[in-house]
Each structure stands twice: as C-alpha cells, then as structure tokens.
C-alpha cells in the first residue's frame, strides 16, 4: 500500500493542525501509541504469551499442561525423542507430499479458472461467483460432502469409477493408505483452489489491456501472450499466493482430522495432526509442543520469505 505523500502547502492556514499534522512525515504522537495499546495488550496476552509458554513446554517433560504447578527441569529430551522418532519423519514426509501435491493442484486449477473467468462473456459474473464458491464452504462441511462422495458402499465416486471401467469392484477409500491420502488431496484442492483463483483474477485484472493489444498487433499468438505478458505480470501475486497456499496446507488441521484422523496406518498424519494427537490424544504436551515449535519455525521462515518477496505489503 502506498503512503499518501501528496499534501503540501496547507500548513499556514491550519493552526490546530500544526499540533497534530497527520500529513507530516514525522508524525509521532501519544495518540498513536494510545490507539495501539489495546491491540498490543491483547496480542501479548493471547498470542505472544502462549507462544512463550509452548516453547517453554517443549523443553520440559510435561504430560498435562498445568501452569499453576512448578516448572519441570529444563530438558531437551523432547527434541531428542522427536528426531529419533520414525513417526515424526513419516509426518514430515506426509506433510511434504501434501504441500507439493495440493499446492500444485490448487495452482493449476486456480490459474485455469482465473484465466477462464477473466474472459468477457455473458454470465461472466455468475461464473466468477460459482468458480470461487467452494471458498465459502466451511472445511468441516467440505469433509462431510467428500466423505459421502467417497463412501465405500454407496458413494457416487465408486459408482462413477466402476461405470468408467477404471475399477471392477468398489474401493474402500478410507481403509487404504494411498486411497485416503488421495481423497485428502482432493478435498484440500477443492477447498484451496478458489483462493488462488481469486488472487490471480485480481492480478489479471490489473494487467493493462494495451499490453495485449500491442502484442496482437505484433502478431503474438494466444500462447505467446500467456507466456510473455500474463505470467510475468502475475509473478509478484503468484509468489505471495504460492507461499500462502503452501502455508495453509502445511498448517491445516480440520480437513485431515475430520476426514481420516491421520489414518489409516498414519498415511495422512501430517505434522499438525501429529501435534494434536500427541497433545490431546496422549496428553504428551511437552512432546507435542516440540513438534509445534518445529512447525512454527517453518511457518516463520516461509512468512518472512513471503514478506521479503512482497515489500509492497508493508
């Protein structure tokens, strides 16, 4: 967002404004601090303090987080156990596969739909609305929809697959590791692509029409226009969107937890699911916090990358 820097020459007629001239480049004022105070206080209490607590927990051998009890001795045992644990590396691998597959899927579908509804045609407004509709379906409801579509006995997908001759008997989607992983990917792509579509459409609309007209005059084909105008102009938005989508997949809890609970055989147990399972399934809060801290570090690095790529967000 650009700062407003255009005011000049208004000062002489404004005696009161001299006391607080909001347009002056050096506007330091008690009011600025006062207005920030409630937010700083609340963020400190419900975000910063809990973050410190969880880092602290990750260095203690605690089972149930009881803040009123004396602190347990400092130990790095949680991290040592974590790095030696097969489950942790499995969760890393599952998370990595999810991030790659779902982000790619969201991107291809999001880009295709954005390019489609960026065309001018009758009903374009309706198409835009429909294409982004899954964004407005709560994650839990999306899971309900797909759990039924992929139901092992009467689900529509099994019927379609058999009709198409892809399989000869019904697939039990949620008891096969690779099939449930695939279903998780489908749900996440369906839920995630509208965000990409919305972001890219906003980017597409900011490309001046003149660029395309000039290219047409020079005889560029549709494919050349896409490669040489559209994609380069979208690069800044693409970068930010990619990081946001990857972070969403990385952190997502509800879809996987409600759909498969991380199973079968931990095939869909991502780092988020493992953190939650350890904390609230086995009440190993210290150990779970250690996994959480690792995911936190990944998130911070990724969001820093994004901010660096998009200096305009400041």
């Amino acid at each position, binding site marked *: *967002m650009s700062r407003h820097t255009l005011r000049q020459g208004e000062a002489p*007629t*404004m005696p*009161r*404004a001299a006391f*607080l001239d*909001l*347009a002056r480049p*050096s506007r*330091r004022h008690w*009011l*600025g601090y006062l207005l*920030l105070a409630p937010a*700083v206080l*609340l*963020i400190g209490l*419900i*975000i910063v303090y*809990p*973050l410190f*607590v*969880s880092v602290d927990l990750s260095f203690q051998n605690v089972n149930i*987080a*009881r*803040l009123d009890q004396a602190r347990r001795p400092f130990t790095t045992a949680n991290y040592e156990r974590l790095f030696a644990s097969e489950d942790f590396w499995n969760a890393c691998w599952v998370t990595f596969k999810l991030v790659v597959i779902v982000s790619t899927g969201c991107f291809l579908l999001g880009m295709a*739909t954005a390019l*489609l509804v960026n065309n001018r*045609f009758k009903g374009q407004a309706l198409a835009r609305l*429909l294409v*982004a*509709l899954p*964004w*407005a379906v709560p*994650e*839990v*409801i999306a*899971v*309900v*929809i797909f759990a*039924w*579509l992929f139901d092992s006995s009467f689900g*529509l997908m099994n019927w379609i697959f058999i009709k198409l001759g892809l399989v000869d008997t019904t697939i039990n989607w949620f008891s096969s590791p690779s099939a449930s992983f695939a279903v998780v990917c489908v749900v996440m792509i369906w839920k995630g692509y509208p*965000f990409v579509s919305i972001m890219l459409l906003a*980017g597409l609309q900011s490309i001046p029409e003149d660029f395309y*007209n000039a290219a047409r005059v020079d005889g560029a084909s549709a494919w050349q226009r896409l490669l040489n105008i559209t994609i380069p102009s979208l690069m800044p*938005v693409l970068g930010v969107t990619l990081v946001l989508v990857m972070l969403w997949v990385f*952190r997502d*809890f*509800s879809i996987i*937890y*409600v759909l498969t609970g991380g199973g079968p055989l931990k095939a869909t147990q991502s780092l988020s699911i493992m953190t*939650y399972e350890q*904390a609230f399934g086995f009440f190993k809060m210290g150990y779970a*916090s250690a996994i959480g801290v690792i*995911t*936190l570090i990944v*998130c*911070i690095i990724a*969001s820093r990358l994004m*901010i660096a790529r998009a200096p305009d967000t400041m």
Partner: protein
Amino acid sequence: MKRNRLDSVLLYATAILTCALLVFPIYWLVVTALSEPDQLRQLPPKFWPDQPRWGVFAQILAERPILQWLGNSALAAIGAVTLSMTVSVLAGYSLSRFKVRGGQSLGLFILTAKMLPATLLVIPLFGIFRQLELIGSLWSIILAHATLIIPFTTWMLKGYFDTIPRELEQAAMVDGCSPLGAMVRVILPVSAPGLAATALYGFVLSWSDYAYARTFLTNAQTNWTANLGITTMKGEYVSNWSDISAASILVALPILLIYLFLERYLVGGLTAGSDK
C-alpha cells in the same frame, strides 16, 4: 476484440462444464439432503430425488439441537468479532496514520501471526484457559478466535484506512475536532463499508473454526458450535447421510449467503495486503 463463433462456443462450453464440475459437490450435498435415506442406497444413483423431501430441514431442527449449535457459533463469532474489531480499528488506524516507534515491527509481527499454526497455539491456550476455568465456556472460543481474527482485521483495516485521504481529518480538525474526534466522527463513518466487510470476514473465520471448538468444548455439549456438532453427527450416524447433509446445509448457509451478497467486498479483503 471480436471472437469468432467457434471460439465463443468453446468458451461457453468450457465455462459451463468447469462451473458444473466444481460446484457439483455442493449440488450433491443438496440432493443428498433432499433424498429419502433408502433412496441413497440404490444404484444407479438418482441425480435429483423423485420426491424432494423439503420437510427434512424442519425435521432435523426438531430432532437435533442444531439451533443451539448455530446460536453458539453465532455468539462465539459475534463475541470474537466485536473484541477483535475494537482493538483492530484502533490499531489499524494508528498503523495507517501515525509513525509510532516499533509500529513497523508490530505490523510485521501481526503479518507473521496470520501464519501461526492453530495446533501449536491450542496447547498453551488449553493450559491457560484451564487455569482460568474457561474450558467448556464460550469465552475460551471467543478469545481463541480472536487470535485468528485480529491479525487479519488489523491488516485489512490498515489497508482500508490508507485509501482514505488525510485531508478529511485535517478539515475536521480545522473545524475544531480533536484528533480522536476526527477519527470517531469523520473517518469511521466514511469507512463503514470497509469496517462491515472486515467484520464479516472475521465472522467467516470464526464460523469455520473446528480445532479450537473441538479442544475446548468437546465435554460441554450445550456449548457446541455448529462445526463441532456436525462432526459428532458424522461419527455417530455413519449411514444417515441425508440428515447429516441437511444439517450441513444449515451450517454452511450463513457463510454462503454472506459470500453471495458480499463477494466483491470479501474478495477485496482477501487480496488486501498481499496483492498490489
């Protein structure tokens, strides 16, 4: 630019096919809700029920405490949005208008806070709320949802205030308004559409939460939010997809309506701060 006829036909065909395919899961939810449970166990499936049972919604509302769940979700969302908006309007205005020492770093921190994993924050919050005896109460959800909402609303509002010319405040102050008065009487009324869109966005975030409700409210059945209630139905009635679908429609409806009526504003909010 004129398109030739073949291109037009292709464009319409692609558009219709794409929309139909992508929206089909939502359509199927509606079909499932309107079908008799035993009809769903027949193959080939019916793509529209012979006799849509429109009464299913009234029936499910009578059989299940869905109104209570929706009420809890609404209370939690209204509480969380009110709390978040109060602090974010002030903070967003300050970040937009004042050069406060540390303001830049605070802005960066808030931007990073948007990316925090809920599964990490939920552990210490559980400990803190247990000590405060808030587990099972909607207050725990209100505070937890504020951690989701504040980072978004603060950034959206800062971006919105940045688009309002500073001359407005200056004129108000020339007319004798105090700096605070200029903000309350001039800037906030002018920003009403932005404030409303931001608040609705916060509402959507709160309404969609599952992780916090699952953790803090599972043992307090009367305080279940809509999403939590739906997942318990899913676990319990594996066979009755038609009831679950009807309940799901009722839960998704508020958000779908907000989206349909306010698409433009919400989309503006989504892209604010990350796109130029």
